């Protein structure tokens, strides 16, 4: 076990797993209780457009993806507030557009194209120190957001109309939540990739919801579960030479299947 930790890339991977677990545990809980998994999925996949654009322009892919995801999130928040009855279809359009746009942009980028697979399925073993700082600052932002607006977030998620009448600016809060979801998704892409990020955002909160009696408890247990999934996944990938992102998700889905027979508390 300890021999793994001699490698710097393994240490970075574990730090990344730790940060991503807390991001996914906290934000994933808010995504699940607000039933915005599809919005998160749309942002995750659509943000590939930002990666393609960043490669084309020669800027940092993570920066490109972040900006692109924020724009997508802004559009989705706007569509949600307009109460569009075909919101899911429109999200589907944005989802597909982002991916196609990203692929065309990489096609148009001259020279060697970076490994598409590393963005689709993650590259936690090649996380850099710079990536860790990026993830860490997003986690700090999330913690501040949730600590300050904890009551408002719960009231809005439970009953938006009641919250609005109690003076909570639900439109603004929901928009902020979507934007933070967008940033969280982009930061998690480094670890598990944009296809698998949805699993890490939804499986831990889904399981945690059954065994907790408060949102704070659900966030804590989700973070812990995500960390366990990441840890076991990383170990498996190291020992059997498997893809790290996919190993993490397979561990998560296995636990998901195993807990299904348990009734909720």
């Amino acid at each position, binding site marked *: 076990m300890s021999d793994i930790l001699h490698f710097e890339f393994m240490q970075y991977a574990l730090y990344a797993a730790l940060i991503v677990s807390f991001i996914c545990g906290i934000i994933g809980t808010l995504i699940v*209780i607000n*039933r915005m998994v599809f919005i998160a999925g749309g942002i995750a996949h659509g943000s590939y457009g930002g990666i393609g654009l960043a490669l084309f322009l020669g800027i940092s892919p993570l920066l490109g993806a972040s900006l692109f995801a924020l724009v997508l999130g802004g559009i989705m928040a706007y569509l949600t507030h307009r109460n569009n009855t075909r919101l899911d279809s429109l999200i589907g359009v944005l989802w597909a557009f982002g991916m196609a746009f990203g692929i065309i942009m990489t096609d148009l980028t001259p020279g060697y194209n970076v490994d598409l697979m590393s963005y689709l399925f993650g590259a936690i073993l090649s996380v850099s120190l710079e990536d860790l700082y990026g993830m860490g600052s997003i986690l700090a932002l999330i913690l501040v957001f949730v*600590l*300050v*607006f*904890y*009551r*408002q977030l*719960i*009231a809005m*998620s*439970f*009953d938006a*109309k*009641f*919250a*609005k*009448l*109690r*003076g*909570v*600016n639900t439109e603004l809060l929901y928009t902020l939540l979507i934007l933070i979801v967008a940033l969280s998704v982009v930061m998690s892409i480094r670890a598990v990739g944009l296809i698998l990020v949805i699993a890490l955002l939804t499986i831990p909160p889904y399981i945690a*919801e*059954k065994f*907790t*009696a*408060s*949102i704070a*408890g*659900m966030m804590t247990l989700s973070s812990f579960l995500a960390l366990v999934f990441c840890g076991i996944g990383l170990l498996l990938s190291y020992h059997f030479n498997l893809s790290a992102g996919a190993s993490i998700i397979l561990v998560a889905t296995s636990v998901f299947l195993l807990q299904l027979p348990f009734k*909720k*508390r």
Partner: protein
Amino acid sequence: MHYDIEINNLSFNYEGTDVLEGINLRYAKEEFLAIIGPNGGGKSTLLKLMIGLLEPSCGEVLLFGQKPLHVSSQIAYVPQDTMANKDFPISVLDVVLMGRLSPKSTGRYSKEDKQIARSMLAHVGMSDFETHKIHALSGGQRQRVFIARALACEAKIIFLDEPTASIDTAGQIAVFELLKELNRHIGIVLISHDVNVALNYATKVAHVNKTLYMHDVPSAHDFKLFQNPKAHVCDIELISATRCNHLHPKQNL
């Protein structure tokens, strides 16, 4: 006479269809107002207009003489219990505490907030369920908790959207008895799908089907039928039997 709610010549249309037309209404918080009418007749829409969740297409709603959203701290709303988010992990006490939210408050709830929330739970007879998960309760118990949450707002009027929709008859009567008692101090405005139960408790009935007719509910002396909770009258009997002032929809009060 002083009125807490005044609706003047209100109309509302949604995507080109007239949902409400020429609505006039006066309400003082001493009254127990039941809004009845057929499904799709605009009951919920009218309630949402009253509390400012919707804006009228024309005409105006005045709550305590002001625009509803400006005075939302003085009212409370009990939405229809849809069970849409039924796995939401939250305790009964935390639900009631939502009533203590105010625009400025961030962080945690104060000791005083918790005290108020607990006393409201006691008021609706749900103290023993403080730590229970909200969705482990029965429909009637849950509705009591939502009423406690509304009370925790310390509002002058409580608006309820079909408070007894998912409750058995005994539970319905218990909820209405509670509301009747609360009405000694605060205004009660509710939508009811059950004309008969509503009539036994309401002092004023608004029949909404695109237009609105107000009825004063006759006292027991006038109309023996209402003494018996099991009695049944249909909407038409109600309209012809009670002293109603059928205003022409376009006519101003």
